[in-house]
């Protein structure tokens, strides 16, 4: 009798063990199949090369801008986006002589107008723009005459996407948008505006915020992004602090480059993230060989003090250049404060926007 009981217990024990083994095998298989990025963190202090660059103002035949925030070139055309445009958000010019062509993205609250503009992207001879306040992506295409842009397509973003503040086109049918909920880093959205999936994580060491204040953390980690489909590199730079993240979507690696400005600093007020620390990056571009980012580096204490004196200089005087793997290569020191850039490696120039000047478009020879 005793022998039978012992045998039965032994069999039960073995069955439990088998269950545990099966579950372990299943878990290891499941997690190995999940898309995991290999993350490495690099800290940089200095750049091996530094160079001063002098701006050359580009004469415009029209004075249109209030706050020229982004400049993007496609072939012989250049689009400049005015973040605080009064009549239109986007103005189109011939490249390289900046002769005016047309304006689009009319400011207004009718269904065909825009409440805000966050960024612009060229794709297949069309220009995409994001209206965060309406949660709409709009595509403008050229009229047959080639001298005006028409509103060809709109993508209303799903309600599960919180306050989209930047975007890139991953391919013809997918957008990548930074996640503002704090749950992940990026939202992948289809051409109908539906959320496909979320990926990545905020690489913060602020455990308390990660546990209890993710929306405020996401606000503080608000990032500008750039993507190059030729090499599959997606770069994100933080507006506060000094963090550059490089996601190689081809080999699934993730590099976090942190400068002396460190992580974005913030305080929490009524659940919102209030910037403290420093102003960080304001634009990023991934070319075929490097990553270019505009860096400000002013502390909010200094900004407040200067503002009280009536001195307002908005923008950054530095362009940092990193390799596609995150290695610091060069630091350009500019004679102007700039905001948005377009790096034209073919011509060996950087076109930049200056929000402080009546000559808002400048060019730096590399």
């Amino acid at each position, binding site marked *: 009798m005793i022998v039978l009981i012992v045998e039965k217990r032994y069999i039960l024990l073995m069955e439990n063990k088998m269950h545990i083994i099966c579950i372990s095998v299943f878990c290891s298989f499941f997690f190995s199949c999940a898309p995991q990025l290999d993350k490495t963190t690099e800290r940089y202090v200095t750049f091996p090369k530094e160079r001063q660059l002098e701006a050359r103002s580009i004469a415009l035949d029209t004075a249109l801008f*209030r*706050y020229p*925030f982004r400049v993007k070139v496609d072939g012989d055309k250049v689009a400049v986006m005015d*973040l*605080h445009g009064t009549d239109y958000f986007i103005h189109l010019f011939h490249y390289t002589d900046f002769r005016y062509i047309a304006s689009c993205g009319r400011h207004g609250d009718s269904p065909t107008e825009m409440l*805000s503009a966050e960024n612009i992207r060229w794709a297949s001879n069309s220009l995409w723009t994001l209206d*965060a*306040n309406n949660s709409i992506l709009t595509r403008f295409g050229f009229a047959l005459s080639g001298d005006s842009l028409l509103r060809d397509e709109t993508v209303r973003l799903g309600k599960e996407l919180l*306050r989209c*503040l930047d975007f890139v086109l991953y391919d013809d049918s997918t957008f990548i948008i930074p996640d503002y909920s704090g749950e992940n880093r990026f939202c992948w959205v289809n051409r109908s505006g539906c959320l496909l999936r979320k990926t990545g994580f905020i690489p913060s060491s602020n455990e308390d915020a990660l546990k209890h204040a993710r929306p405020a953390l996401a*606000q503080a980690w*608000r990032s500008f992004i750039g993507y190059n489909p030729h090499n599959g590199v997606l770069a994100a730079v933080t*507006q506060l602090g000094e963090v550059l993240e490089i996601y190689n979507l081809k080999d699934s690696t993730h590099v976090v480059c942190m400068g002396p400005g460190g992580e974005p600093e913030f*305080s929490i*007020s*009524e659940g*919102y*993230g*209030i*910037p*403290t620390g420093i102003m960080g990056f*304001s634009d990023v571009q991934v070319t075929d060989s490097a990553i270019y980012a505009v860096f400000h580096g002013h502390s*909010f204490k200094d*900004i*407040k003090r200067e*503002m009280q004196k009536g001195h*307002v200089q*908005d923008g950054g005087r530095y362009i940092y250049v990193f390799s596609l793997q995150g290695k610091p290569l060069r630091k350009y020191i500019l004679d102007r404060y700039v*905001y948005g850039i377009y790096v034209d490696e073919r011509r060996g120039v950087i076109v930049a926007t200056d929000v402080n000047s009546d000559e808002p478009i400048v060019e730096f020879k590399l």
Partner: protein
Amino acid sequence: MRNNMKLGLIVTVMALAIGGWWVSYHHSVKVTSLLLDNVEALASGESGGAICYGVGSIDCPYSREKVYFVNGK
């Protein structure tokens, strides 16, 4: 008779209210553009916790406007 008086009173009060609104709505106060800029700059988004100042690129958490500076209290 009393009903007619009540109706007349209501109509008079409504006419006065609409007239008052009309006058106040169309009375243009001359405000300089500089003053408007300053008002906008001083408080484009305000709450108990922070105030958003100026014209810039920081997303004001309260007003959804792009501002130069967010001042925590």
